[in-house]
């Protein structure tokens, strides 16, 4: 028995769940059954993925007899994919716990759940693909299933728009990915991934680099590398909350998986520059992602931009790993791969959690606009605590998991001086600096992302009347537990990831990384050491100290509690609180070169200065730079080309027959040559 058997079980569960969803989710019982099957698949996938981590790469198994495009269904379970598979499983389980309370039974839900479970299946197939053709078919299936998933409410114009953005960019990326695979496959003469990896050394450096760059851009569309990221903020808000969670938690990570596949496993490019390109693509993605997040007030768009930021951080780590590989620093190569993959797992957990909680917020208040929320911690206490755990994680604050992986990445980047080249060392430190800025802004952004909706006073009546009754808690709570486990159990996680790194790179960090007393020695033996476990315990104890001092030393005499000093004002009103947009105004001013904000203040009586009795309307719009200056010209260009070739399509049957004839003639002629 191999991990693949568990993955088969997961696949079977998800197929069954898709069928059940399609046929039965119109009723509550059917909905629950579908989610139960989906959750069972998740458990199986998580177990299979975890096992695969330790098991190492299995042999490629050919299943089925299909020979459509010259290949069979080739499956393989690998250590690298194991991490992603385990994450997929955890996400699937938590969504399965979440969905029955989030969705109401209906025809739309049925279709949605079918598409969702098919998407899970397709993701699993991508991760378990052992051959190029299997991979590509699974990849394309996943894109289409996700497209359907985003289109949960097809009559909604913005949903159609978001789904279209997703599909268009997916297809563009797919073409590049196909090209990358074709290059490697034709140069190595193998279609299995193992085969390509085995013969990679015979491929010329130029081809390897070309294949890698094509893959970086192609998978970059999915991973959300700037400027290929535009689908994320469009598609995430319109999908249902669990759909968005799945997109951010898993689908984006598959883009990262694709990049890792080409960067570390199949045919790692030679030379330093592919690593540098990757690293800076990642670093800029991270910085721009978080800056745009700051300008958003829609919770889900905000989280989508944050996903872009985190994908950027992971890709930065990969890029730095490639640089160290080129410099012959094998240990650092493996270490940064581990750190990056660790961040994949972490981000998968807390981002899924935050999207699920965003769904709870939207369900209870009817809005995703942070500036219409406020004070939810009093109305949704459980959700608030869970979201707070996720927020600590994503803001990379100790003792949560985001801190551990980001800290490891930084430790890796700080070793830039070991590359032997001054220029490279400086560039790596520069990337570390950009990530540092990103980290600081991320804390700022998530103070806002948690503080505005959950703290303060409710800004609208629905926010004041929100109720937690009937809202899903278990799913996000599971993820919060996972976040804590990934932080406190860092030594265990690193032990497992070390196995993965050995399978991919052949380097064993083992005792160097983990001396065995719950301490982690990242990057290099004479650089630094820390213990996430002890840190978590210490922080909890340290927080307890002031509480204990207060309890022990609080005055026994009678004390008076009086309201907050408010300057004698009649009463505080919600409009007197910082709002999401005003909170981030300093950033908007500092980075106005990027945002290019357009500010307009209008009052109805502007022509009548003393009659300024009307309400003020103030608006500051951030220019969507990439949409306006990159995609809009591109789309116009495409429309112009389409206009050019339109005469070909005349609707005349005879003409079409002529086309067919011409194509056949051309094929024969080419064949003859």
């Amino acid at each position, binding site marked *: 028995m191999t991990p693949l058997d568990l993955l088969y079980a997961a696949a079977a569960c998800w197929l069954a769940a898709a069928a059940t969803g399609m046929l039965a989710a119109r009723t509550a019982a059917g909905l629950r059954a579908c989610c139960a099957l989906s959750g069972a698949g998740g458990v199986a996938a998580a177990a299979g993925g975890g096992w695969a981590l330790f098991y190492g790469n299995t042999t490629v198994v050919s299943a089925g007899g299909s020979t459509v495009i010259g290949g069979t269904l080739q499956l393989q379970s690998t250590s690298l994919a194991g991490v992603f598979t385990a994450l997929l499983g955890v996400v699937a389980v938590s969504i399965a716990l979440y969905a029955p309370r989030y969705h109401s039974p209906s025809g739309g839900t049925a279709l949605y759940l079918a598409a969702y479970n098919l998407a899970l299946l397709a993701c699993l197939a991508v991760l378990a693909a052992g051959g190029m053709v299997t991979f590509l078919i699974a990849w394309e299936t996943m894109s289409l299933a996700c497209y359907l998933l985003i289109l949960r409410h097809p009559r909604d114009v913005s949903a159609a728009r978001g789904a279209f953005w997703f599909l268009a960019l997916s297809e563009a990326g797919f073409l590049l990915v196909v090209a990358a695979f074709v290059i490697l496959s034709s140069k190595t003469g193998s279609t299995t991934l193992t085969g390509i990896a085995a013969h990679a050394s015979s491929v010329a450096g130029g081809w390897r680099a070309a294949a890698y760059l094509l893959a970086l851009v192609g998978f970059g569309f999915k991973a959300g590398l700037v400027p290929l990221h535009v689908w994320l903020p469009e598609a995430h808000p319109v999908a249902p909350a669990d759909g968005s969670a799945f997109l951010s938690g898993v689908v984006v990570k598959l883009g990262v998986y694709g990049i890792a596949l080409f960067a570390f496993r199949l045919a790692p490019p030679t030379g330093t520059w592919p690593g540098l390109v990757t690293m800076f693509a990642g670093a800029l993605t991270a910085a721009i992602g978080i800056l745009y997040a700051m300008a958003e007030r829609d919770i889900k768009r905000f989280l989508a931009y944050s996903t872009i930021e985190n994908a950027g951080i992971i890709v930065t780590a990969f890029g730095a790993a490639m640089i160290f590989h080129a410099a012959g620093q094998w240990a650092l190569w493996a270490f940064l791969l581990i750190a990056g993959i660790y961040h994949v797992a972490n981000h998968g957990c807390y981002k899924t959690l935050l999207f699920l909680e965003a769904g709870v917020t939207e369900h209870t208040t009817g809005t995703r606009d942070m500036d219409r929320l406020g004070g939810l911690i009093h109305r949704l206490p459980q959700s608030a605590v869970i979201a707070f755990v996720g927020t600590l994680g994503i803001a990379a604050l100790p003792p949560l998991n985001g801190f551990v992986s980001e800290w490891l990445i930084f430790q890796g980047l700080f070793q830039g001086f070991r590359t032997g080249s001054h220029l490279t060392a400086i560039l790596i430190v520069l990337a570390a600096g950009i990530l540092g800025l990103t980290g600081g802004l991320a804390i700022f952004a998530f103070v806002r992302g948690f503080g505005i909706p959950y703290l303060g006073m409710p800004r609208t009546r629905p926010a004041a009347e929100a109720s937690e009754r009937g809202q899903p808690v278990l799913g996000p709570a599971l993820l919060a537990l996972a976040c804590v486990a990934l932080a406190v159990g860092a030594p265990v996680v690193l032990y497992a990831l070390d196995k993965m790194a050995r399978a991919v790179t052949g380097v064993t960090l083992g005792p160097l990384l983990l001396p065995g007393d719950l301490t982690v020695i990242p990057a290099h033996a004479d650089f630094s050491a820390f213990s996430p476990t002890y840190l978590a315990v210490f922080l909890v104890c340290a927080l307890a100290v002031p509480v204990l001092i207060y309890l022990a030393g609080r005055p026994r005499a009678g004390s*008076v509690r009086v*309201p907050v*000093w408010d300057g*004698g004002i009649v009463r505080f009103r919600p409009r007197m609180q910082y709002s999401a947009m005003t909170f981030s105004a300093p950033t908007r001013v500092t980075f106005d070169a990027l945002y290019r904000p357009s500010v307009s203040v209008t009052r109805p009586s502007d022509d009548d200065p003393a009659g300024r009795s009307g309400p003020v309307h103030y608006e500051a719009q951030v220019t969507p730079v990439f949409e306006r200056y990159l995609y809009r010209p591109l789309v116009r260009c495409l429309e112009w080309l389409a206009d050019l070739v339109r005469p070909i399509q005349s609707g005349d049957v005879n003409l079409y027959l002529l086309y067919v004839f011409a194509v056949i003639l051309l094929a024969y002629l080419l064949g003859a040559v």
Partner: protein
Amino acid sequence: MTAEELRDTIARQFGRSLHIRTLDTGSCAVCEQEIRLLSAPHYDLNRLGFFFTPAPRHADLLLVTGPMIRAFAVAARKTYDAMPGPKIVVATGACALGGVYPDDPFTHGTVDAVLPVDVWIPGCPPSPLALLHGLGVAVGRLAEKVRDLPFTEEHYPERTRGGS
């Protein structure tokens, strides 16, 4: 706490340093000007250990001017409540003592209708010297004189007849 106990506490606790918060309950802006002048070089109340503080949370003494406008009473009460005890309220100026506005729909007429006043400083406006004396009286450092003043002419033999 009786008035005597309060005075003892204050003399003990605020003997050397006392923080003052001002409160305008409808003055004509002149009392405020005189209070501002307390920190001017001519009077310099810091030399006597008095300090102004904007936060009532840090204040020991509330210097109240104006006739206590009804619309402002809530804010006045809030300010008083925001101060930690023990605290002193000083009614400053003729308005605060009932000399200018009566008890009517607009004003309470006196500060002690809303706040428990400990020290009264007459004058329209009380000059900075009178304010300094009042602060001294409030912390028990200066003696009260007015108790023994009959305000009849016999008491002022040095003044000539008919002089004004």
